[in-house]
């Protein structure tokens, strides 16, 4: 579909949704095509766990913005792949502890460099001015969303139960 067919009312220029899809598509294709073939939500889960801290499934669900049962299935899948480790404590279900394994950290690093390479390749034909402008714009967007998100998450109470 040609771009101008979906253009919004801003003088024929593509809208934010349309523009975001360009970057999202490059990233998604790179992630899916890399050696580990992670899904976007698997990648997000590994990124959350990358700080090395252990989490209960309920806490992880909260950080990912999904319901606990979805997070539980997601973790099951990553445990099966050996990318995430999970305590199987018979003592207390509350202690169930999810953390990134070294193999998970390596998969995350491989995927990140696949994304890096794909974006480098995609932007290579652009002029260096355009590349700089894109980089500056995305960095500004990252800062803006980071600042917007901070007050909301700071005082948020943790979940009381896993499920």
């Amino acid at each position: 579909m040609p771009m101008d067919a979906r253009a919004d009312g801003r003088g024929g220029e593509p809208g934010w949704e349309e523009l975001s899809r360009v970057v999202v598509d490059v990233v998604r294709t790179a992630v899916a095509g890399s050696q580990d073939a992670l899904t976007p939500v698997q990648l997000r889960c590994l990124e959350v766990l990358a700080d090395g801290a252990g989490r209960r499934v309920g806490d992880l669900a909260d950080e990912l913005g999904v319901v606990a049962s979805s997070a539980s299935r997601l973790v099951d899948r990553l445990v099966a792949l050996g990318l995430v480790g999970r305590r199987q404590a018979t003592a207390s279900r509350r202690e169930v502890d999810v953390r990134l394994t070294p193999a998970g950290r390596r998969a995350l690093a491989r995927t990140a460099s696949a994304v890096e390479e794909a974006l480098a390749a995609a932007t290579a034909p652009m002029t260096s001015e355009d590349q700089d402008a894109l980089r500056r714009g995305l960095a500004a967007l990252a800062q803006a969303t980071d600042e917007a998100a901070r007050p909301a998450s700071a005082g948020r109470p943790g979940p009381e139960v896993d499920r």
Partner: protein
Amino acid sequence: MTGGTAGEDVAADVDAVVGDLLRRALDVAAWTVPALVVDVLGPALDARGLRLLLVDHELVELHEVAAWPSGPQGRSRPVDGDREVEPAGWAFRRRAVVRDARGCLHQPVHVRGHRLGVLVAEGPGEGAEGLLAAAAPAVALLLRQAAGSSDLVEVRRRSHAFSIAAELQWDVLPPPGHRGPGVELAGLVEPAYLATSDLFDWAVDDDVAWLALLEASGEGLAAARAADLALGALRHGRRSGSSLADQVATADDVLAREHRGGATVDAALVRLDLADGTAEVHVAGDAVVLHRREGDLGPLHVVAGPPLGAGEEDRAGREVALTPGEELVLVSSGVLRALSPRGAAFGLAGVRAALDQAEEVLDAPRSVARAVREHAGGQVERDATSLVVRWSGPPAGAQAGRRPGA
């Protein structure tokens, strides 16, 4: 079974109780065997309570899987710790019965060097030591048999959920230890629940002990499958009566044909003649064989061939003559190259210190795994595997007639 109230009754009933336990345990569903064990032995010991703890695959924690009369509380105890603080862990580690300050008896449950856990009897009657000691090997055999047809025993002893690769690897791994005439050996992959690229194997037949340590290149399921294929090829050769050199050639050939050089497996292989202590050693790729004698540990110099799967015809092993009490230690690169947070390799010095910490061969790989884990800051980057074998002298000598598992 009378559940005797006097010490003599407990002692006199030993054979009857163990026989009763065996008959009844083979009559019930496999998954109920742990519960049956404590239900039969608890009253027979004239104890206030009896708990069965099983060790996880990492040999780090003991998990309560059955208790009489109240049912399991799901409590877990660490294997490491002082005798006073962790009597169950101490009993497991040392394979020795412990009576703690509260009068509880902690009886290790093991058979032929295969260590499964600990029975903890609270306030047992007199003569309970004899009954527990006689029952423990039977309990170990029953639990091993039950684990073959039930998931419950297997799942309850786990501290961590297994990856698919780990399920595959634990299906092909032999028991983690053996103690018999002329030989003691033990092996462990760290971390057990993520075992992927490493495998070990052993068999003892006709005064010969065969040992193998394998380490596949790459990672994930591809590495696990390559290691499995190499192990299958080695076992096939061994069971067909092939020499060690021919076993190596078979594994090399099948890996090269299946993966066309895309998957290779480093390997260390030993054929130990238990009658005279002659060890034939082959090394393919980066696997390492160490020689331990009189407390000193050094590398055994073997001309290493290329890894299995390289399709190399020209390979050579070497022979080394062991004297009684000497050990060979096979380690994967994940052991020697494990890095500390500051970037220091675990190395030979790390292995030496870990082996010195171990009480006996059966505990040596656990000691190595623990030391590597601590060195690496809690989590090892790659599978870290060790396989230790000790030649204790010709079986016809002092070892002959020794009770299995004693």
